[in-house]
């Protein structure tokens, strides 16, 4: 059996979890074994209505009330205990922050190897995976051993694909043996939302600034364009290292991964560690003085020129467009 560890929000599986279900479904088909899923927290049972479209035959729900809120070691204990009991060939989780953390705990607890951020899985002996290194700038082909193969799936390695046919899903609640020790990390339940601004993760347009913006003040023109387009401002690591912008704006290997409709890279050279953070954008527009900068050849559109000159002209034209009375 293949076991998919899914994350959910009040029973609705996250996008990455749907990708995991899709990959796990393909794998179970290839291995000719059933597909089962596990969701943690009492509300996990509501996921049955969705996993039915992904070929899941059984949904295990770790329904102890203490597992309702995120508790990394407690969640891992539940997944590990279930794994020992139902004995799957493979357990796949998401490579989200939480998925990665829980699967690492599962692996540590079960004393098994874990392959993180896999993009391809070839079952058999040897069991071969392709996994991301350097944030996805490089791939590794590896052999994974262990009586149960534990892995996490890299975000967007494939697209989630629901099947038109539905399976009969049997829901199996279970109560793992929990220990106070599993709750030594106390999460303060309330999450502070970032106020007001459109978040980098959600924005349809992201205007990214690099060293070529010239200064912290130079970002004013990017902020203005973000305001005009209803987008968000991001930046490169060169910029956060210089202290021009907070690290929460950084796009790339050690920053955010974004997937807007349009990414406007202003004065950014296009280093691979930056590109892994923005290559999921539908379109990239580069603004750079150097026509030979790597960003230019990786972009869909480019303007060769000074960031400030280009943006002041663009911003002025959009303002003018807005002034013209409609009709």
């Amino acid at each position, binding site marked *: 059996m293949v076991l998919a560890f899914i994350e959910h929000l009040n029973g609705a599986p996250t996008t990455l979890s749907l990708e995991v279900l899709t990959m796990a479904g393909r794998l179970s088909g290839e291995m000719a074994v059933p597909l089962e899923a596990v969701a943690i927290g009492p509300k996990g049972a509501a996921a049955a209505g969705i996993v039915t479209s992904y070929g899941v035959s059984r949904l295990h729900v770790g329904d102890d009330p203490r597992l309702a809120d995120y508790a*990394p*070691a407690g969640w891992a204990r539940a997944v590990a205990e279930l794994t020992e009991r139902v004995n799957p060939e493979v357990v796949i989780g998401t490579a989200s*922050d939480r998925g*990665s*953390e829980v*699967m*690492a*705990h599962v*692996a*540590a607890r079960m004393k*098994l*190897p*874990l392959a*993180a*951020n896999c993009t391809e899985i070839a079952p058999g002996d040897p069991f071969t995976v392709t996994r991301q*290194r*350097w944030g996805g*700038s*490089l*791939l*590794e*082909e*590896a*052999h*994974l*051993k262990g009586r149960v193969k534990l892995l*996490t799936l890299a975000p967007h390695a494939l697209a989630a694909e629901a099947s038109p046919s539905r399976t009969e899903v049997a829901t199996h609640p279970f109560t793992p043996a929990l220990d106070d020790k599993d709750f*030594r*990390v*106390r999460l303060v339940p*309330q*999450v*502070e*939302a970032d106020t007001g601004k459109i978040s980098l993760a959600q924005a349809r347009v992201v205007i990214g600034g690099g060293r070529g913006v010239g200064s912290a003040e130079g970002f004013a023109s990017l902020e203005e364009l973000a305001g005009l*387009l209803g987008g968000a401002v991001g930046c490169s*690591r060169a910029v956060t290292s210089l202290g021009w912008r*907070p690290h*929460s704006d*950084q796009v790339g*290997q*050690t920053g955010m991964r974004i997937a807007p409709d*349009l990414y406007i890279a202003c004065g950014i050279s*296009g*280093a*691979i*560690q930056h590109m892994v953070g923005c290559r999921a954008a539908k379109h990239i*527009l580069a603004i750079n003085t150097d*026509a030979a900068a*790597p960003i230019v050849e*990786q972009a869909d*559109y480019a*303007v060769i*020129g000074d960031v400030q*000159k*280009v943006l*002041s*002209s*663009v911003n002025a034209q*959009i303002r003018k*467009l807005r002034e013209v009375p409609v009709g």
Partner: protein
Amino acid sequence: MNVLVCVKRVPATAGHIALSADSQEIDTRYLGFTVSPHEECAVEEAVRLIEKHGGSSTVLTLGPEVAIDQLRDAMALGIERAILLETDGREWDPVATAAAIVEAIEAERAAGRSYDLVMFGNESADSAGYQIGVRVADALDLPCVTGIKALEIGDGEAMVRRQTEAGWETAELSLPAVLTVKEGINLPRYPSLPGRLRAKKKEIERIKPQWQDGGLEKIRLKLPVQVEHSVEILGKNGDAGAQVVELFQRLRLL
């Protein structure tokens, strides 16, 4: 308080990555070496903790002899002691790496040095297994939080914050503990010249751990397939303004 920071020597990759002829490594002929940005921040955080609370800091790496460069870099920033778990340069997988680190921490404890905090980067820049910190915490029976971007210590407790898609999440845990750090927790300082000179003279403690097969074996590296595509040049400088606005309209952003 006593803090241990664990770091990994990796190539300081530049704009793009090339592979060695046998596809086993990154071609490092023209590259320097460094540690992950996450680990640079872990080192900085350890130095700040000791500056604030007193105590001592130690840096540890598992790697080849030349990894003493990265240990000295950390000492140049203010870390006091350094331990090298010396390997013959071959790849150690996460299980083997964590086991060697656990053994070293236990040996330290037996010698009367115990740590209130063991810090790691959230994931190494190169192999990025996302698990060493958690495995070490599990083996030592310590609580662990990964991916922290803020840390406060008070009265045997740690308060940490991490960034989620929805905002910021706060967690509390008692010390001793294991924490893995993400870039952004601080802005690391640059080493001073006296710092560098001091670090150069310091002794490095060495241990030779036993390699083991941890169950994840690298077969080869490969570069992701690049999709062919072409770029449309919209114009130069301010003259391109109209074309850019037209593009926004075409993409239905205006």
